[in-house]
């Protein structure tokens, strides 16, 4: 396999004296791999290792009437039956560690299961076979509830409610039940178009399917600590999550990871680590919690399913003048990372094309399917598939060569993107030219002469007057007061040229190494009143999470509201609160950030620091 470098392209944009890139280089870990000596989490041997297995729901949606584990407890080798009540703080959402979303998922569910395979109990035994046999001996009385497996059925008013934290079956991108992106006036532009091209696209869930299944081994260590060997892709995330669920100081957790037998996004959900540590706490012994292949496929969170409807307004010459997108991310039963997929995706719309009128509604929907999570470019991959299929369809309708169509509409350096950031370092034109060459596809001279560095115009570089609407406020859809999922006609106008909030990355830590509370995100009354100087930063935008937020038109109407008081500074802005239209945009409307009901008894309890992460090195 050889890599071809096209150093002729954008030659003056880089200092071209690369020493490593483009030259073969051995992986530093390859010696261990080929000798079979790389130590993955399961390659740590412990004397007296116990094995933990979960009892899982056979139903998509059911209430647990009763659980009888008496027989299982008496079976040979069984050390401990772990019940939901054994989990000290049995409610979490992954992104609570960065202050995004509400706690909505239990480690072991005690009342209702919301997807097939949801765990309700665990058994720790001397051998894996004993743990399996004991799980099979537990009797559960299930009351099967109606379920919903389709995103659009789930947001219909009569649909069963999946997740009580989001009773409408949509993630709250306050004040709306979806992420809004508005740029120009797509509805008006459609009337000018020569062709309207509409289609729907769908992507199934995709399992990351790493060859090493998810798992962890935890064991009591010296100094009242627990060591945890894990295959996680997100070591400190897993550590923080374990500390929160188990209500234990993170300084008592010694996590060892970094050697992952394939992850691809499927090993960020931090489930096996708290389970294994809980097992070690309850038994005082080393405990392994490892998914088998069936679990990896059934309950391992996949890339979530997506459905997209795209409507384009196209001129006879192939210029796309308007694009409307309606997208549904299937989160499954719990949020995990799907809420982020919705915002991340919105920052990517309408794809790498300069389109003057764009309107998009993106939903993150709860269904009774396996919760979805990260996988390679999630949030982007599915919609890109849809957009590129749609470009081919547009080319066909307009009677234009599909590559030529892409070159015509591709971003040029300096163009204004729909989320109000300037396009830089564009390369789609050149990619099209090179790909056409490789495929022996003949392009016209004009297309071959095109360049990403030329072609932007003052018009393409400007922010148009934008039509805004307030359709789809939280609770209205379920009540039957919101008719459509697609963007509706705007009723208010945002003046041309209105920019979004400026983006200032919030540092993770202060110079004194204290975690910045507004970044970590747990609302902490003590911290609010504390002597800590308010962070010397602009808005507390969790930058990596919210590419679209700052650019949403409504946010544009509020150029960087000054922080009234330090209290506000500790509240991370949920991404779509930025979408508050001018009329309704009182800051009070912003969704409240995460608030644990009770303070944690153990763990770091210091003004300004997360209780789950002991990141302070000196104090």
């Amino acid at each position: 396999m050889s890599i071809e470098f096209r150093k002729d392209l954008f030659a003056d944009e880089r200092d071209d004296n690369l020493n490593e890139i483009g030259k073969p280089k051995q992986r530093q870990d390859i010696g261990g791999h080929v000798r079979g000596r790389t130590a993955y989490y399961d390659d740590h041997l412990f004397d007296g290792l116990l094995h933990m297995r979960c009892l899982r729901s056979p139903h998509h949606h059911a209430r647990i009437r009763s659980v009888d584990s008496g027989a299982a407890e008496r079976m040979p080798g069984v050390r401990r039956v772990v019940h939901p009540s054994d989990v000290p703080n049995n409610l979490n959402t992954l992104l609570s560690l960065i202050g995004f979303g509400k706690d909505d998922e239990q480690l072991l569910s005690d009342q209702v299961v919301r997807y097939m395979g949801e765990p309700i109990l665990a058994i720790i035994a001397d051998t894996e076979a004993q743990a399996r046999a004991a799980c099979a001996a537990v009797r559960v009385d299930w009351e099967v509830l109606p379920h919903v497996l389709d995103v659009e059925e789930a947001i219909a008013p009569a649909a069963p409610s999946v997740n009580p934290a989001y009773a409408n079956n949509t993630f709250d991108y306050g004040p709306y039940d979806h992420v809004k992106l508005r740029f120009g006036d797509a509805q008006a532009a459609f009337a000018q178009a020569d062709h309207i091209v509409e289609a729907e696209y769908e992507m199934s869930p995709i399992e990351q399917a790493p060859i090493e299944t998810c798992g962890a081994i935890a064991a009591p260590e010296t100094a009242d600590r627990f060591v945890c060997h894990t295959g996680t892709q997100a070591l400190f995330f897993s550590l923080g999550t374990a500390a929160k669920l188990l209500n234990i100081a993170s300084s008592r957790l010694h996590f060892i990871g970094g050697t992952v037998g394939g992850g691809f996004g499927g090993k960020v959900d931090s489930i096996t680590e708290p389970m294994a540590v809980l097992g070690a706490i309850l038994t005082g012994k080393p405990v392994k919690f490892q998914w088998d292949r069936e679990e990896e496929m059934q309950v391992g969170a996949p890339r979530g399913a997506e459905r997209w409807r795209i409507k384009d307004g196209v001129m006879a010459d192939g210029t796309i003048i308007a694009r409307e997108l309606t997208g549904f991310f299937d989160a499954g039963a719990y949020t995990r990372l799907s809420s982020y997929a919705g915002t991340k995706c919105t920052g990517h719309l309408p794809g790498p094309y300069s389109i003057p009128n764009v309107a998009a509604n993106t939903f993150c929907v709860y269904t009774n399917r396996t919760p979805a999570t990260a996988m390679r470019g999630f949030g982007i991959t599915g919609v890109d598939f849809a957009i590129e299929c749609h470009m081919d369809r547009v080319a066909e309708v307009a009677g234009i060569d599909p590559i030529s169509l892409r070159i015509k509409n591709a971003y040029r350096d300096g163009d204004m993107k729909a989320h109000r950031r300037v396009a830089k370092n564009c390369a789609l034109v050149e990619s099209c030219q090179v790909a056409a060459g490789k495929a022996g596809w003949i392009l016209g001279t004009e297309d071959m002469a095109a360049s990403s560095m030329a072609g932007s115009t003052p018009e393409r570089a400007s922010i148009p007057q934008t039509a805004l609407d307030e359709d789809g406020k939280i609770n209205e859809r379920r009540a039957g007061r919101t008719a459509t999922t697609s963007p509706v006609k705007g009723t208010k106008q945002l003046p041309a040229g209105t920019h979004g909030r400026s983006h200032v990355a919030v540092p993770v830590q202060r110079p004194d190494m204290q975690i910045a509370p507004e970044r970590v995100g747990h609302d902490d009354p003590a911290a609010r009143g504390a002597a800590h100087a308010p962070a010397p930063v602009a808005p507390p935008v969790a930058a990596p999470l919210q590419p679209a937020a700052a650019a949403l038109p409504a946010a544009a109407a509020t150029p960087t509201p000054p922080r009234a008081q330090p209290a506000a500074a500790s509240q991370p802005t949920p991404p779509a609160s930025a979408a508050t239209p001018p009329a309704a945009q009182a800051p009070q409307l912003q969704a409240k950030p995460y608030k644990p009901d009770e303070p944690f008894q153990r763990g770091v309890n210091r003004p300004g620091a997360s209780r789950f992460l002991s990141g302070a090195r000196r104090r």
Partner: protein
Amino acid sequence: MPKTPVTFTLNGAETGIFVDPGLNLLEALRREAGDLSPKFGCGQGTCGACTILINGEPHLSCLTLAVAAQDADISTTGGLAPGADLHPLQQAFADGFAAQCGFCTSGMLMAAKALLDRNPRPTRDEVVEAISGNLCRCTGYDPIVDAILDAAARVQGRVTA
């Protein structure tokens, strides 16, 4: 429950362990015999990460009853390198970027060894067939196939570009 003794040759060394009668050979090798090179990826025969050689033939250790390995001659990736130097297959995998996360690598190497021991000059199609029971989620297989062909060439003294 009484454990059962099993003795076999593991990478040339006489080995004896005690196992639960229903235990599979993968777990027995890893936990009892201490050879961690075969990996658990499925326990149902689908991934090939646990591939070992029994009497020279490729076997899935996760689907082999440990007690049935009595008197068997077992080889694993853990015993592939004769010493400080790597086996030609290992060297070719290392040079050819044929492992990323490395979790499939032990099984791939054993499947490849079974092929080259029988057929020192395989065609590309024969290599593909030989690793058809082994899944890799990282490499896309091409570097692995190339590396196996490269190893065959190295053993033959043929030089590949």
